[in-house]
């Protein structure tokens, strides 16, 4: 404890000295998120590396250096609001980058609307926030989310259902195991209303479980009793409990779906290997995702700089790294962050295409306010650009399906354009 405390005090004191020394104009970036979660750290470190690189290249906006100010939310909603206020009023930052989870972002959003500070969310994919941009384009103008929103995530999953689960595996029926949260309900709704009819998979039953469930044995028994061909899980809170019990109980039924805990490289270590066979959709770039040279360079820098978890940044780390640079570029064009509307206009135009082997691999851009996405027939203003139809020429898909094998490998299994391995069922499933 003393060590950590001293370290904290020292670094704070050093930061104080440094900022006192550099009395020239500087750009202040605020980070809001949990400093003790892999998620929060991914965004924080992604932003930090981008800032280091920009500063090393002579700064931004005519040579201004960027400083990063951290505000911890502890993944607590009220602390999140306080953290946002701290960044806005005490630290007086120019731009905020967020690695917040859904309810924390929703908590501080009214503050963002009030302060009109340019803000980029890299983790939450809640479509409700994009709806807020649709409804209040002016108040939400400084807000951007550079991860595909969850509606888009789920939509691509339907194709996975048709192409792989139905066509390749030959499964006709499913039982949904969904957690009792807003996220669980939203995804369950999409699966029941879209996956089933489009892919021709019958939903035998939907079992909603309490997120505090200790013992999943009766729930798995209930799922088996429906006689469905496979289980579709929807789990964002304590997801490793359900997946590890699935593995420990060797439930003789295939399971796929959404399992948020399996999105990071630490999944294997954290579950002690009790996570083999689990597949989940993941935002891009996921673990096991082939990286373009620019993103790979980022990971190399990251690994040279940090030796604590996460060993590889989560998708939001990439989003923060590329997104922060885009935000600075937009500020360069708009003459800074002060005029939030001007910055917002410039940010909308940011478009970074990362190529791999001569073709478009990843694209960091945003949907325009009036652009209607063809598959879902709706607009996604200020949301990361994605492409829902093969061969993904406009942008990368909204998500990929990844799978952890029983020996600890992880790879992308869908869509085929991005796949590194084949979808399979665990060995104990016949």
């Amino acid at each position, binding site marked *: 404890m003393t060590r950590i405390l001293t370290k904290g005090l020292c670094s704070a004191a050093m930061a104080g000295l440094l900022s006192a020394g550099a009395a020239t104009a500087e750009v202040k970036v605020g980070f809001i998120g949990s400093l003790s979660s892999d998620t929060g750290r991914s965004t924080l470190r992604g932003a930090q590396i981008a800032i280091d690189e920009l500063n090393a290249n002579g700064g931004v906006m005519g040579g201004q250096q960027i400083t990063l100010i951290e505000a911890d939310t502890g993944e*607590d909603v009220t602390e999140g609001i306080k953290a946002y206020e701290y960044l806005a009023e005490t630290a007086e930052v120019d731009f905020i980058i967020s690695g917040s989870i859904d309810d924390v972002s929703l908590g501080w959003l*009214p503050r963002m609307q009030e302060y009109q500070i340019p803000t980029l969310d890299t983790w939450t994919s809640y479509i409700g926030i994009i709806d807020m941009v649709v409804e209040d384009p002016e108040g939400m103008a400084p807000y951007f989310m550079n991860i595909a929103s969850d509606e888009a995530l789920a939509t691509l999953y339907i194709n996975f259902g048709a192409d792989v689960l139905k066509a390749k595996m030959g499964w006709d029926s499913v039982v949904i195991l969904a957690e009792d949260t807003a996220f669980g309900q939203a995804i369950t709704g999409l699966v029941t209303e879209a996956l089933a009819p489009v892919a021709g998979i019958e939903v035998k039953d939907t079992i909603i479980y309490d997120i505090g469930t200790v013992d999943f044995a009766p729930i798995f028994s209930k799922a088996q009793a429906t006689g469905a061909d496979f289980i579709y899980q929807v789990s964002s809170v304590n997801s490793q409990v359900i997946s590890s019990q699935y593995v420990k109980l060797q439930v003789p039924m295939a399971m796929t779906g959404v399992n948020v805990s399996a999105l990071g490289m630490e999944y294997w270590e954290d579950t002690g290997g009790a996570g083999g066979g689990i597949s989940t959709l993941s935002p891009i770039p996921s673990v096991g995702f082939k990286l373009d040279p620019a993103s790979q360079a980022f990971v190399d820098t990251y690994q040279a700089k940090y030796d604590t978890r996460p060993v590889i940044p989560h998708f939001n780390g990439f989003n923060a790294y590329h997104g922060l640079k885009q935000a600075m570029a937009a500020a360069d064009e708009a003459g800074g962050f002060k005029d939030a509307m001007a910055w917002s206009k410039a940010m909308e135009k940011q478009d970074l295409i990362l190529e791999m082997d001569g073709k478009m691999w990843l694209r960091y851009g945003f949907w325009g306010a009036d652009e209607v996405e063809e598959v879902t027939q709706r607009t996604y203003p200020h949301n990361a650009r994605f492409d829902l139809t093969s061969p993904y020429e406009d942008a990368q898909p909204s998500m990929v399906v990844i799978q952890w094998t029983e020996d600890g490998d992880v790879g992308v299994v869908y869509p085929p354009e991005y796949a590194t391995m084949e979808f399979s069922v665990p060995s104990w499933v016949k």
Partner: protein
Amino acid sequence: MSTQITWKHLALWALFLGGMALLPMLVGKGTLRTIIFANYLAIFAMSWDVLSGRTGYISFGHPFLIGIGAYTTAILSYRFDVPVGISIPVAVIVTMAAGTLFFLPALRIKGTYFALVTLAFMELMYQLVQVIRPDLTGGTRGISGVQTLTRGAVNGYYLSLALMGVIAISLWAMMKTRLGTALSAIGMNEEAVEGSGLNTTKLKLFAFMVGAGVAGIGGAFYVHYLGSIAPRALFDINFLFTIIVAALIGGASTIIGPMAGAFFLTFLLEYLRPFLPGAERYFIYGSIALILYMYEPKGLYEILRKARERLTGANA
């Protein structure tokens, strides 16, 4: 105990609130934002104190009451476009009704068991908000974009200060009367109060209604200040922890105590932020709270009182 209200008291209140009113000219907006949270926490702590600090019925479910007030007005104004002028009073009434629900177990159980049943109330509410009508409550994500009453730190500050000031003075004046004495007496020996010919059920019910009413007012204005509401922000052990610790660290059974406690805790947490941005902050914050509580369970108020006694004693 039952000293009369004197001009000196009123002058001190005027000095305190007047000084607070001048603060926006002296400190930055960031500090004001911090004080706003302290003001609301002070309201919650005072409300807890009326209900628990005085009567000794320790409530571990106070967030239940605050949450009911907050959710009622949030749902009414956000989902049904009810004007805030109506939704807030309705929220307060609903919270007071919930306070009576809280009161039912207090008829039969006290002490440890009462604390536990209130904790169960809070946990139940946490579960129910997510399950029942998520289309209204917003489920786990809650509601964002609830109408805010003020914009900017200064306005928010004055609103919260006015609320806290009015509540503090009203409660203080009420507790200066024989009623306050009787409520404190319940905390010391309930049978003897009943044995003095006083209807303790009625007194407790009144304390619960006042406590719930204040919690409802606080919760309703709080949500219209935050602009968002989520179950994890309200029905949470950490929130409960902050309220109780504020009341106790400051000094239960006083008005100034919970206020002082709320300010102390909020500022402690905020001033640690630049030095310890991460989880260390909660560790230090909790440890300081624990040590203070162990050192003097009656709180800062008692520590200062003793110190003053020692000083004046030394002078005399």
